[in-house]
């Protein structure tokens, strides 16, 4: 059963052209990239300190003085909203004795270190140093906090530790054209979790860069998505696949009853599955039409999205560490951060955003919840991934395993490693 796709000439703002598959060969990906402390050290030096990194949602620092502390490796960064509306970022470290200044998120009129109450303006300059006259050498000549590059795009704040870095939009190219039509800035954040996982950050990135594992660890999704016949596109740094949702995989038989995940998608759109007389394989297109016709009355503006974006998952990866499951009504954004010191650990940030319907009450802003793998559920599908990954990481340490043996369905993993190694240099 072939899943219908939109064709050249159909309305779309997000480019839908299939890119030519690059030939990265069939070489094994060496496992040391996932396990070696020296590779991890090179990643810090040549990758993390050079690339644009997703910092927070713009709404996290909506008002003047709002701040949020994020981290990458051993560094902590304060992202904060200025009086003129700009977002700025500073290393979260006091110039006096090196103490961390701020924690978590909140609103501040100044950033004050708890140790000796050295105080900085939200624009970074020293505001007050108690007993300054007792420092014969005066205040540190840097004048305050050390700034990092910050730019905003489509409702997100990015930072870059490299003062010489290219502008954010150039780094993101061509994603502005691709993802602008979703208007993430119209969505609101509904979930904010950070889970500590016992695997390398790339083990997690890989897990979301292919849908080959769906038939392995997410069998339920075979009755909601087409997992194999999907479009994979690779760009200079970033990549994507376009994966049909609200349909069933070619791997399973069509049933008379509509599978529950598809029913849920229909109900979310206000379409009653009990009144649908077509076949299960006809739901996806009917749902696209329904949402197109009924979206506006529900206060949902789909006007910049093509028909299949109304049902499908346009799944993007922003190099190096952002995974985005993008749908017309919501966004599931995963950020994969390396552990400070241990290549066998990582931080998995889940940020979910949602488009609100007309008159739908804005849910309370979520506060970041931190936990270790297994301490709480993140929903069936993420739990299935999370339960699997520590085993992958442990297995990679085995003498009997040399590296990743990848197939065509895993092209995005090869592409990711190509871009990664362009930054890192040879193994």
């Amino acid at each position, binding site marked *: 059963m072939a899943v219908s796709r939109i064709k050249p000439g159909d309305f779309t703002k997000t480019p839908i052209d299939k890119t030519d598959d690059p030939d990265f060969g069939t070489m094994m990906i060496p496992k040391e990239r996932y396990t070696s402390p020296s590779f991890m050290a090179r990643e810090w030096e040549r990758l993390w300190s050079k690339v644009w990194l997703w910092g927070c949602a713009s709404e996290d620092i909506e008002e003047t003085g709002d701040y949020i502390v994020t981290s990458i490796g051993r560094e902590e960064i304060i992202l904060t909203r200025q009086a003129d509306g700009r977002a700025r970022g500073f290393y979260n470290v006091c110039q006096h004795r090196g103490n961390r200044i701020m924690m978590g998120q909140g609103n501040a009129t100044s950033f004050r270190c708890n140790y000796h109450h050295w105080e900085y303006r939200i624009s970074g300059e020293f505001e007050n140093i108690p007993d300054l006259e007792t420092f014969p050498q005066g205040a540190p000549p840097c004048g305050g906090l050390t700034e990092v590059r910050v730019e905003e795009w489509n409702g997100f704040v990015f930072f870059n530790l490299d003062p010489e870095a290219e502008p954010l939009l150039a780094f993101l190219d061509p994603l502005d054209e691709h993802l602008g039509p979703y208007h993430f800035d119209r969505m609101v954040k509904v979930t904010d979790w950070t889970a500590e996982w016992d695997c390398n950050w790339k083990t997690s990135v890989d897990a979301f860069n292919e849908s080959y594992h769906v038939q392995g660890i997410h069998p339920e999704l*075979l009755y909601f998505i087409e997992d194999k016949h999907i479009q994979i596109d690779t760009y200079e740094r970033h990549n994507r696949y376009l994966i049909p949702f609200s349909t069933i995989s070619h791997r399973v038989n069509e049933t008379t009853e509509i599978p529950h995940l598809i029913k849920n998608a229909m109900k979310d759109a206000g379409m009653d599955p*009990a009144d649908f007389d077509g076949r299960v394989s006809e739901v996806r297109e009917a749902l696209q039409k329904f949402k197109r016709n009924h979206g506006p009355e529900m206060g949902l503006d789909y006007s910049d999205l093509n028909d299949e974006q109304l049902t499908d998952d346009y799944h993007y990866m922003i190099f190096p560490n952002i995974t985005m499951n993008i749908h017309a009504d919501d966004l599931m954004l995963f950020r994969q951060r390396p552990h400070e010191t241990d290549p066998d650990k990582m931080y998995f940030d889940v940020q979910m955003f949602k488009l609100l319907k007309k008159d739908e009450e804005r849910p309370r802003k979520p506060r970041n919840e931190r936990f270790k793998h297994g301490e709480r559920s993140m929903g069936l599908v993420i739990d299935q991934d999370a339960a699997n990954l520590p085993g992958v990481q442990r297995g990679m340490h085995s003498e009997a395993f040399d590296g990743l043996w990848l197939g065509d369905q895993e092209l995005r993993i090869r592409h990711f490693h190509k871009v990664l190694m362009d930054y890192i240099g040879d193994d």
Partner: protein
Amino acid sequence: MELGLKGLKAAVSGGSRGIGRSIASLLAEEGCHVSICARGQENIDTAIAEFESKGVRAMGRALQGREGDAVRGWVRDTVEEFAGLDILIANLSAGGGTNEERYWYRNFEIDLMSATRAVEEAYPALKESENASILIIATMAASETFVAPMAYNAIKAALVTWSKQLAEFYLPKGIRVNCLSPGPTMFPGSNWEMIQVARSRTYSAAIRKQPTRRMAEAEEIARSAVFLASPAASWCVGTHLLVDGGFTKGVQF
């Protein structure tokens, strides 16, 4: 044992897949001419080809089960095409669903009304038959609480009650009416095949209650159905046969 089906004319609603398909296929094997109706023309075409390969006449109509005129039209066409009718098997179902309001209408229109409409339309032809029989396919879930409160279970229960009264009413006209309730049944493309994967906990809960730890195959239901509908079951009237592999524990008096 001779079932006496050779040369008889049968109509099976929803006979393009699953239990209905298996019933129609066994009837054809026994030499019955068979007519089916279903949603998809593609499945109908495949089914007809299979029936015809057994040396009988076969026909089918693609329709939506909730469209009364279409269901009636299919029965009329069958009677006309076959020049008569001996057996009607009301098997069409909308399946499970949930307890939400529109599902009540869906099961009412598709499970219940398609049966009453087909029976009413078939009556004049059945009255003329020497071997007339009607078989209503209900479900074990009508007599045993199963999975959750939902329209499917309750509407099927209405069919059981109706079939009993129909049996008494039609017997003097020479038409036997019986009812058969299958337990959970697994076949390629069955809803249970989907539930096993997509809602594995629901499946496990059901299979744990099945004494043999497996579900029925469609043909295991169909063999009982074909017997009940056949002239060989001449003394079975107004019976409600549970074919559930021992799932239900209540004693039927």
